[in-house]
């Protein structure tokens, strides 16, 4: 690779890293419930080697009615070792994995393009375009900046695919070992990869059997080793705790598979869900409408990518690069498999794997238009460059200026503000009382203000007469100002209406 490419690659990684790390402690504006749970478990592991429930180095962490995969929590423990018990520590592994995925995307795409004469010459340029696009992709940025396990899982999964390709080309066993370990780590990181990773490894092993019998034995051995390493997870999956998540989100909860009609219904549900992941409004406009998963009305992908995706599909149908075609189609087909068996469908988080093929497709589309050079080509590229720039500026404005305000409720920012007020006032009061209707789970207070004893109460709570001489700080939603003289402070949400999230009373 020539020096200018290396410099450009570093520039892209730097940009991607900057976008992922800049201000992550305060944008998203607070830790949401899963992040808090991850943070608490990670801190307990770091300090005592046990989780919140006293289990030593568990394989699955109990959390709000289901069990979390362990890798991300252990990574947060490591991060807390360096950065302390902070919001930054909880999000650091995800942001780091997100940044490193840009590099993996670059090398993976380059490897794919280099496997054919037609695309070999442009491999470096196109891979740079793909890496650049991935660095600024709204969908991936969104999840890299929160404490989402899926980003780490995606990093290991794509690294596994990349090493698989390296093994295919070089036959060095070390790469095969890498594939096995990466797929294994990815399935121990995020629920959806408990299905995607084994399925991928299995299907690739089958493909190798038909295409390259010489190395089939090695792949089979690696697959057996993978299954062996996955054994604890398989055993866990058959326990009631392991099935909790699956049963809680299953799309087939109302379906019985006892007869043909039930099976047919199950198939219809799966296919309907599966197809919904390729919905244009989902990809380019609304996403799954969960405010934590995307910036409202912006879409997961940039709008200008749409025509290039179509051109990319055209390129795929014509290219002689069979490996590129195989991997692209494979990734597109496998990405919705695990999400389609769960509800709600479509869901942005579980479908994050699709960011990789969509990025490649856009880059291929750009190449397709480039090779069909005509009098319009220059105009198309100039217009595209302008659109890319404008869209990116819009995204920056939406994400860094508007999103922290409009998504405060979704990210638990109100609860975070209450905890910081409690911290400030803790010495002035004997009791801190919190109304349950604020929906601030106790874990928030355990995470931010572990030393202060709290009391959780219903909305009907009155100060007991026994506490007559005690000073109480009472946090509750806005029920109306019936005791304005006792009002200490209003906690506001910085949204359009500037709503009151909570009121703090001194009683």
């Amino acid at each position: 690779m020539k020096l200018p490419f290396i410099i450009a690659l570093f520039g892209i990684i730097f940009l991607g890293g900057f976008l992922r790390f800049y201000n992550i402690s305060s944008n998203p504006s607070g830790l949401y419930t899963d992040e808090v749970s991850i943070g608490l478990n990670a801190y307990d592991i770091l300090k005592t080697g046990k989780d919140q429930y006293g289990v030593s180095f568990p394989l699955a962490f109990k959390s709000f009615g289901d069990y979390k995969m362990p890798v991300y929590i252990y990574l947060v423990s490591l991060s807390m070792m360096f950065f302390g018990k902070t919001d930054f520590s909880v999000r650091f592994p995800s942001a780091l994995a997100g940044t490193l995925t840009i590099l993996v995307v670059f090398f993976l795409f380059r490897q794919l393009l280099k496997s054919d004469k037609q695309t070999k010459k442009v491999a470096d340029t196109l891979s740079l375009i793909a890496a650049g696009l991935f660095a600024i992709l709204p969908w991936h940025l969104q999840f890299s900046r929160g404490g989402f396990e899926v980003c780490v899982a995606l990093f290991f999964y794509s690294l596994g695919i990349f090493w698989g390709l390296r093994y295919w080309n070089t036959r060095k066993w070390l790469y095969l070992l890498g594939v096995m370990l990466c797929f294994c780590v990815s399935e121990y990181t995020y629920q959806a990869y408990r299905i995607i990773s084994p399925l991928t490894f299995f299907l690739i092993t089958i493909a190798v059997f038909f295409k390259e019998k010489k190395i089939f034995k090695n792949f089979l051995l690696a697959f057996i080793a993978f299954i062996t390493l996955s054994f604890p997870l398989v055993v866990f999956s058959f326990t009631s705790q392991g099935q909790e998540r699956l049963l809680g989100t299953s799309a087939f909860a109302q379906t019985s598979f006892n007869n043909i009609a039930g099976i047919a219904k199950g198939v219809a549900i799966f296919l309907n869900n599966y197809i919904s992941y390729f919905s244009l409004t989902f990809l380019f406009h609304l996403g799954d409408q969960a405010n934590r998963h995307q910036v409202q009305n912006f879409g997961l992908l940039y709008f200008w990518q749409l025509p290039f995706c179509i051109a990319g599909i055209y390129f795929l149908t014509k290219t002689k690069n069979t490996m590129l075609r195989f991997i692209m189609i494979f990734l597109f087909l496998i990405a919705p498999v695990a999400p389609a068996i769960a509800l709600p469908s479509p869901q942005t988080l579980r479908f994050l794997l699709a960011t990789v093929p969509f990025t490649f497709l856009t880059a291929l589309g750009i190449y397709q238009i480039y090779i069909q050079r005509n009098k319009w080509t220059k105009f198309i590229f100039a217009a595209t460059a302008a659109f890319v720039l404008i869209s990116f500026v819009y995204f920056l404005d939406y994400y860094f200026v508007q999103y922290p305000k409009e998504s405060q409720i979704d990210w638990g920012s109100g609860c975070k503000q209450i905890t910081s007020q409690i911290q400030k006032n803790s010495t002035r009061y004997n009791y801190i009382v919190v109304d349950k209707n604020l929906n601030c789970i106790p874990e928030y207070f355990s995470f931010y203000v572990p030393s202060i004893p709290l009391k959780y109460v219903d909305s009907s709570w009155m100060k007991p007469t026994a506490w007559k001489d005690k000073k109480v700080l009472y946090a509750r939603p806005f029920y109306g100002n019936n005791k304005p003289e006792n009002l200490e402070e209003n906690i506001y949400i910085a949204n359009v209406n500037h709503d009151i999230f909570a009121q703090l009373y001194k009683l």
Partner: protein
Amino acid sequence: MRKLLIVIVWIVELFFTARWHGCWLFKDIFYFTWKVVLARAIDAISLNNGASVLLTHLMHNKIVYLFWGGLQMLLQYWDVRFLKEFIGIIGFFGIVFAIWYLLTSLRKNVYVWFLFIFCLIISLIEMFFQPNIDYIWKLFVFGSAFQLLSLIGIWQFLKVKSKKRYLFVIFLLTVSILSLVFFPLAYQAFCLKI
């Protein structure tokens, strides 16, 4: 065989569209009014407090939201989630094949282009102006235009004599029929029921 399949596909698509008689209007996700433009612009400007006023007005104004929001909203009419309820999964794939055929074919297909543009125009008219025409007529116009486009797509797809393609169409037909049987009311996510 091809003609027979096309007829079956058409009948299935008719069944899908016929269900929509149970409604009286499309839902508001299909409409883009001036009020929506204004609301989006005002929201964006309010949330941009603290940023440069000039930049805010340059980026968040009615023209931008009319253009960008309009484009986003137009996707709703071509979205798989809507079309699979309106003309079935088979119908959706028919439209995809038709657009693919238009984009990749070297021959000039004036009639197909005309039909495609007609579908686009009626979507735009409905989206922006919501003309005061009986819902039943709207259904007829939309149904006929989208069905015809999808049938052309499937016709072109089956032109290449390949067993795999026939099997694929039969598979999509089966899935469409299954959807019709198991989710007969799913279309109500997109229209207001009588």
